[in-house]
């Protein structure tokens, strides 16, 4: 077991999130990924009280080479955006491997701390809804798309040939393990789905806003047992952007600067969908442990949690990995859904998450954390001026996490 690094200087605290922006979000918007990206980026820069001339860094996930895997999974890479906006950059980075989607923010904060850039524009664009057309969610690698048999290398060659063609299949097997080992039930996962639906009803941009009952949830068609339709997020088109600035800009932020208090980047064990010995536990655990070791804040200080919900089981395992309850205890923690409701001790995925508001692939959750800390949640605002939010991304083979605060940390 690798020990935790002891930290005197926490570089992430040199950075703040000075601006946020989001394009239209919807199903089959029939817009180009670039136009969505530019909308989000220009909104974030304006929100930060800056112009494009001030932007000297650019960061994104998953970079520009990822679109072959799953149509619409990747938006434009950083080279394409730099060129489209004719930016002059002192630092730039786009890529896939690292502590999940949020790595793009973490990299930006580190670059700011290192003095490589002062104002970094960070974005994530998805256009899966338009790219995958009217046939619904597709399997990976062209599975089922007709024609000859596609070929696949890398780690997916050990999954796709067996009809395990979607993360829905892979995560279903985590859920099955969790059910088997800890007595977790579909009702436990249902509380996560119902919570996002309640919150989505208060978010005008959310996709699925109609109320849902536990009976509706339990009656939904199965995708891959034990995961049903409402355990899976909804592909959308949309782009989310942030500006990460040096903390000495915080007093000039037109709204409220959001501080980056601590990041969690660790990955212990195998970065794999199917090879981790204990699949009841999230790979987020190591990242969460390192994050808590980098802060004096505790779980009791957290006012809202925005935890990745590509699938409900990921969120359940994230609650356990972050230590809000012990591994295996989510069935009690989530019972009745009170703790995670807007009025509860840990308001969760307050904009409706990816399950009900749309699959903005991690960035939507960080956006909502900022909205809440800035007090801009409108009808869904967490009461009592939230000061600390925890965000987690990923949770399949890899994960990353971040504690953010109202005002610089």
């Amino acid at each position: 077991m690798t020990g935790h690094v002891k930290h005197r200087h926490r570089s992430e605290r040199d950075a703040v999130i000075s601006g946020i922006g989001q394009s239209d979000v919807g199903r089959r918007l029939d817009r180009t990924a670039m136009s969505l990206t530019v909308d989000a980026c220009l909104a974030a820069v304006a929100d930060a009280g800056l112009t494009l001339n001030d932007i000297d860094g650019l960061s994104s996930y998953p970079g520009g080479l990822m679109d072959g895997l799953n149509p619409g999974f990747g938006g434009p890479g950083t080279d394409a955006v730099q060129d489209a906006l004719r930016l002059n950059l002192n630092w730039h980075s786009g890529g896939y491997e690292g502590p999940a989607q949020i790595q793009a923010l973490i990299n930006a904060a580190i670059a700011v701390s290192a003095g490589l850039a002062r104002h970094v524009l960070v974005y994530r664009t998805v256009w899966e809804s338009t790219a995958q057309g009217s046939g619904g969610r597709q399997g990976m690698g062209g599975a089922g798309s007709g024609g000859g048999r596609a070929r696949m290398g890398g780690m997916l060659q050990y999954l796709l040939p067996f009809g395990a063609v979607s993360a829905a299949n892979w995560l279903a097997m985590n859920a099955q393990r969790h059910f088997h080992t800890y007595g977790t039930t579909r009702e436990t996962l249902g509380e996560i789905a119902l919570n996002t639906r309640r919150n989505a009803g208060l978010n005008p941009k959310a996709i699925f806003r109609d109320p849902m009952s536990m009976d509706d949830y339990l009656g939904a068609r199965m995708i891959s047992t034990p995961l049903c339709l409402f355990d899976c997020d909804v592909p959308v088109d949309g782009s989310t952007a942030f500006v990460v600035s040096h903390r000495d800009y915080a007093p000039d932020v037109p709204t409220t600067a959001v501080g980056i208090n601590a990041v969690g980047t660790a990955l212990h064990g195998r970065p794999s969908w199917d090879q981790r010995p204990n699949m009841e536990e999230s790979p987020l655990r190591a990242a969460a442990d390192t994050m808590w070791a980098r802060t004096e804040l505790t779980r009791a200080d957290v006012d809202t949690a925005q935890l990745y919900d590509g699938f409900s089981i990921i969120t359940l395992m994230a609650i356990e990995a972050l230590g809000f309850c012990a591994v295996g205890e989510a069935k009690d923690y989530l019972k009745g859904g009170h703790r995670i409701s807007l009025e509860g001790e840990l308001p969760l995925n307050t904009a409706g998450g990816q399950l009900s508001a749309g699959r903005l692939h991690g960035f939507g959750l960080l956006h909502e954390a900022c909205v809440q800390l800035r007090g801009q949640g409108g009808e869904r605002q967490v009461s009592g001026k939230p000061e600390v939010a925890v965000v987690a991304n990923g949770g399949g083979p890899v994960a990353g996490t971040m504690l953010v605060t109202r005002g610089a940390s």
Partner: protein
Amino acid sequence: MEDIFPARVLPTVDRQNRQFWTSGEEGKLCIERCTDCGAWIHPPVGICYSCHSSSVEPTAVSGRGTIYSFTINHQPWFGDIGSYCVVLVDLEEGSATQPLRITSNLIGTEPDNVAIGMRVEVFFLNCDDVWLPQFREIR
């Protein structure tokens, strides 16, 4: 046997993975093994994770194991072919801390009867130039 997946994705066979994907032609499941320390390595990478020796060889295993987890897929990724069972099989050569696990399918068991811990054995399905390991219940 007819392939239930009309557009099954197949592995790209190369130097490193050839034995895993083709030894089924001889009715064997071959997994990479370190000839120095005996560790089983999957997927094959050409180096031992335990002693870092590059003296590794595809080695036949018994083909028996237990279901570590499973899912019954209902989503029509491949059109209307009905449900099918994806399994994670922990082969008997592995251990709890170092499982020797492969993703595959369980064939011939009713979905309601599939269970974690079920004992299974390998057989092979030939698709073009690869022999896919498949599993059936040991009754």
